[in-house]
């Protein structure tokens, strides 16, 4: 019991702060990435439910422009995490839609499990799965189209911008691996 409580003290240390140059590159990448995806959403999709998905891409931006080296930020994870989670989310709603609370919980938990199993863990995938359930009419009527558009399309746009921006500075390279 003592050891159990001891673990909650968290005796490790936080990693150091990154350099200003690093902050600037993270800013630039995420600005461009979200600008592109947001533009797509406002000009083409423009529906309340699909707007929610921007939140999920905002989380992806933290990883792929801010923590470039992270295994969670690699293309395999970015694309795999979003796409697989979207499939799970749509499936969860179609099977369990009459109990929205249950569908929501199943969507997130199953997508985390699947991302683990497929080595595609990408935290924003949890949001992508959840939005398939809580996104309302506009999302629901897309069915599995939700997976390709806007999810896969948005993720691909973010990826292209990450490839372009993250390889400009000498101190960055992206990705660490593809598959």
């Amino acid at each position, binding site marked *: 019991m003592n050891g159990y409580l001891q673990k909650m003290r968290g005796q490790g240390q936080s990693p150091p702060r990154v350099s200003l140059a*690093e902050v600037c590159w993270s800013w630039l990448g995420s600005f461009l990435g979200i600008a592109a995806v947001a533009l797509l959403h406002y000009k083409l999709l423009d529906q309340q439910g699909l707007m929610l998905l921007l939140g999920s891409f905002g989380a992806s931006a933290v990883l792929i422009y801010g923590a470039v080296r992270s295994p969670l930020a690699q293309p395999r994870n970015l694309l795999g995490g979003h796409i697989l989670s979207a499939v799970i989310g749509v499936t969860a709603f179609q099977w369990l839609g009459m109990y929205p609370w249950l569908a929501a919980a199943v969507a997130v938990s199953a997508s985390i499990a699947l991302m683990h199993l497929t080595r595609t863990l990408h935290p924003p995938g949890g949001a992508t799965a959840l939005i398939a359930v809580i996104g309302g009419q506009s999302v629901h009527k897309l069915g599995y189209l939700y997976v390709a558009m806007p999810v896969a399309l948005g993720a691909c746009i973010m990826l292209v911008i990450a490839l372009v921006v993250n390889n400009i500075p000498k101190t960055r390279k992206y990705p660490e691996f593809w598959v």
Partner: protein
Amino acid sequence: MKNENASCSTTIDISEQDVIAAMKDIQGYIDISPGDFREVFQVAYKHALQRIWNSLVAQDMMTQPVQCLGADMDLIQAATFLAEKRFSGVPVVDTNGSIVGVLSEKDFLAKMGLGHPLSFMQIVAHCLTNKGCMATSLRNHAVSEIMTTPAITAGPEITLGEISSLFIDKQINRLPIVDTDGRPLGIVTRTDLVQSYCLTR
């Protein structure tokens, strides 16, 4: 056995401060806590040692050719030989050329009637307090009478890790390396072992 190897090594103990300093040197946000990195490093270090231990074999480090004594050689001759060559121990072969034992300083000390632990300083102390030379008891004996037998030997494929374990477990200082017929190919001494550690450092 593999774990024993790992436990007799000293892991370089990097601190979280070292990891944080390294993270500051390297540009970009590294998505791991310093404590986790330290743990990964230590486990990886053990794997590296294991890899080296298993990749280096006796053949790569042994002294060859090895000089041997005949089992029926007189102890005076044997002592003179060891003194000239500055060997502290040597394998003993029978008339067929197969290793039958190992003759070392320890065997001489034991024959001279010293109690445990056997040491040169015991002789000094004994000679200073008593008259006469203890070594006279060695006259008119053959190598085969005092050598350590059976000899602990190994084939040329034995790994660095296994040799290290043998040295510790059997408390030996040299390991004759033999072919399948028991004939000597070379010998791995503590010196060879230390040198191979330096090469792999």
